[in-house]
């Protein structure tokens, strides 16, 4: 007799763990299968930005609902996840860039979203005193912040287990087959039957989708990050750029995390990445120009997490188009950490009730059909 569950969640990143928690909170019995351990890849090693700023319109509803959860994260998972809210600032490096930002903020207001706010030189200097003189302004999202990614993912995992979810780590899904009214999920350690399946397999989610006969244009990427030794506190908000790739954040312990999307070479079958130092040098030069105070800082570590990037840069969230009872939740395209709490709630709602009020139609997998 195979094991049974109400839902099999594939993937132990923040999304899978959040969905498992929200399913358990609804009284369902989820089993989560993770091939390594929870938070081993992108969810555990990302930059930790909790950002609504500068998101694609299609995912703003999920981002806004996630933000509400982040702001009371300790109530949900029993751990503050290191979440601190000092805002995210998108810095404009020229007047032309600032004009473009203004157009976007105006457009968002017309659509009813007010979290992005245009700021001029004075307010930029007040928020980010260390920024270089050449920057004329930017956009701030004041409720944004940052959290500790591995700790947050582990907190969701722990609370999910406390609420009745089962976690199976170090086990790989090898097949999916419909067996009457249930799905039979074959794994490297036996099979599990459940009426519902959630595909939250991150950089490996295309393989699950392919098992269902719905190929997706997913690229495996590995955004690089580096961290400095401790410096005296000099910046509170997270800073991002548009024209050049940079995200920049000082943690409470004084270390500075530098990212922004330059890519390493991923080897997803070996869980390995090979860094590209010439690209990291570009980040170093950008920081050099933007924050002169950083020039003698010491880089102590660089790394990259393996994750999925969709052809259009936005995630796949919603029911499978080919397979009843299967729901997708992947492809967050290097900005999925903040979306974890809210998307887990929405997918759990979908699984349990077949519907949700949060608009996610633009994220459907059907958009890739020729």
């Amino acid at each position, binding site marked *: 007799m195979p094991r049974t569950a109400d839902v099999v969640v594939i993937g132990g990143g923040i999304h899978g763990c959040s969905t498992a928690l929200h399913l358990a909170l609804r009284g369902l019995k989820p089993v989560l299968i993770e091939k390594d351990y929870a938070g081993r890849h992108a969810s555990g090693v990302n930059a930790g930005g909790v950002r609504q700023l500068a998101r694609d319109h299609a995912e703003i509803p999920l981002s806004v609902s996630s933000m509400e959860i982040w702001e009371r994260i300790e109530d949900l998972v029993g751990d503050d996840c290191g979440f601190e809210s000092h805002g995210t600032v998108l810095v404009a490096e020229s007047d032309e860039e600032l004009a473009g930002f203004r157009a976007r903020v105006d457009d968002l207001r017309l659509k009813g979203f007010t979290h992005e706010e245009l700021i001029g030189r004075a307010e930029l200097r007040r928020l980010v005193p260390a920024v270089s003189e050449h920057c004329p302004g930017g956009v701030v999202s004041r409720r944004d912040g940052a959290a500790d990614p591995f*700790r947050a993912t582990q907190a969701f995992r722990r609370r999910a287990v406390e609420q009745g979810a089962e976690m199976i780590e170090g086990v790989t899904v090898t097949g999916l087959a419909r067996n009457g009214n249930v799905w039979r999920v074959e794994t490297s350690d036996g099979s599990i039957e459940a009426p519902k399946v959630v595909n939250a397999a991150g950089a490996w989610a295309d393989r699950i989708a392919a098992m269902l006969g719905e190929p997706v244009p997913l690229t495996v990427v590995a955004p690089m990050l580096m961290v*400095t030794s401790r410096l005296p506190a000099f910046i509170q908000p997270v800073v991002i750029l548009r024209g050049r790739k940079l995200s920049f954040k000082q943690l409470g312990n004084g270390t500075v995390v530098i990212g922004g999307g330059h890519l390493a070479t991923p080897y997803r079958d070996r869980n*390995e990445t090979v860094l590209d*130092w010439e690209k*990291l040098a570009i980040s*170093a*030069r950008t920081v050099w120009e933007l924050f002169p105070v950083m020039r*003698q800082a010491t880089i102590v570590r660089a790394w990259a997490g393996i994750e999925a990037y969709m052809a259009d840069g936005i995630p796949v969230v919603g029911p499978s188009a080919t397979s009843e009872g299967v729901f997708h939740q992947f492809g967050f395209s290097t900005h999925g950490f903040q979306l974890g709490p809210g998307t887990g709630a929405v997918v759990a709602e979908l699984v349990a009730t077949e519907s949700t009020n949060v608009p996610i139609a633009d994220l459907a997998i059907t958009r890739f059909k020729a």
Partner: protein
Amino acid sequence: MNASDLASSYELVVIGGGPAGLAAAALAAKAGVQTVLFDENPGVGGQIYRGIGTTPVRNRAILGEDYWAGAALASEARASGATIVNGATVWSLDPNRLVGVSISGQARMIQAQRVIVATGSMERPFPIPGWTLPGVMTAGAAQTALKAQGLVPTGRTIIAGCGPLLWLLAAQLLRAGAGIEAILDTTPRINWLKAAMHLPDFALSPYWSKGLALLREVKAKVPVIAAHRIVAHGKDKLAEVVFATGTGERRMTADLLLLHHGVVPNVNLAMAAGVAHRWNGRQLCFEPAVDADFGTSVHGIAVAGDGAGIAGGTAAAERGRIAALAVIQTLKPGATVPNMQMMRQTLAREEMGRAFLDALYQPAPSFRRPVGDTIACRCEEVTAKQVRDTADLGCEGPNQMKAFLRCGMGPCQGRLCGLTITELIAEQRRSTPQEVGYYRLRPPVKPITLAELASLPKTEAERKAVER
């Protein structure tokens, strides 16, 4: 030499200028392999021959004839045609053999067809209560100061630990005129039983007579006390050493406590390159899995010398030659080279006494797996108790431990705590070090400044983006 004088690629990059690196570079370059050797110190020699050619210690008897043997290796390497770059810090090596190196603040990426990692050994962590106090340092650090600057400790000095290097250092310091109050010998008595079976091999090795002579020399001048628990006390700096002996607790006032529990492979660079490692249960450390030519699991990357498992300086040079010969056979198949069989025989003779030394000088568990408030990770000030408690909560490995406690995430990149953390987790979870594993090591394996990284030459694509 400046970073800009380097070629963008070399047939062979040797990393580390100790005996293995020097011997490897010399042999390869003589056979016509285009070779560069990067060494981070101001002069070649590594730890064992540190300061060879520049040391202010003129009296040859102080450091001993084995030390001066390094001069021949160094001059052979210099004459070989290899490019030898000192003050060159290698901070990255990837599986494609792209080498990140920094020279006088200038960084470069160098592509290598073959790499020989000869980064040698480092001292095993010796986490006792008070080991972070000023006035407590490793015996190796004292030896470095003696060789490089001719510095001899003054004040009341105590040496504690076990291992062949402990006796060598004690002898060198005594010859240089240092006063040593006592040697606290931590060799567990039971180790003599375990080592006895390896004694016949050891008696045939070159270390036998040398070792006995060293012991006699030191014991004639310094009281040697068997101790099984050691605590360093002091407010802002070391004041007193308290230790347990067979007949009860004793205390001695001290200005300097030198700790030594043997050396272990310095694995950071090889691990960061993705080289597979395994636990050596005899030497109680991780070492790369190597073949007979010291090739690793990563194509084109060899690890020679003590970095491939501790065997001492003479063996290291032989290993370097064997690794170089494998490179020559691939890249310059027609070159005239020495007989490989002879090298293997020399190496086997050198390695012969190792089992005895490993068994005899295996540090006691209580010195490797601390308890309570004793600091395990110095950089982030993480205690043994924190590590044990976190393991009890379900933390299964060093990488999760990093995320929970930040241990291993400071500037030393785990060199001073890696083995301690692995052993603590293994003990707490009733697992094995092999099972628990080591930190996943991330480059840069040596810290570099943002300015250095920014100094990397721009890529073609980046230059075009700016011109446009």
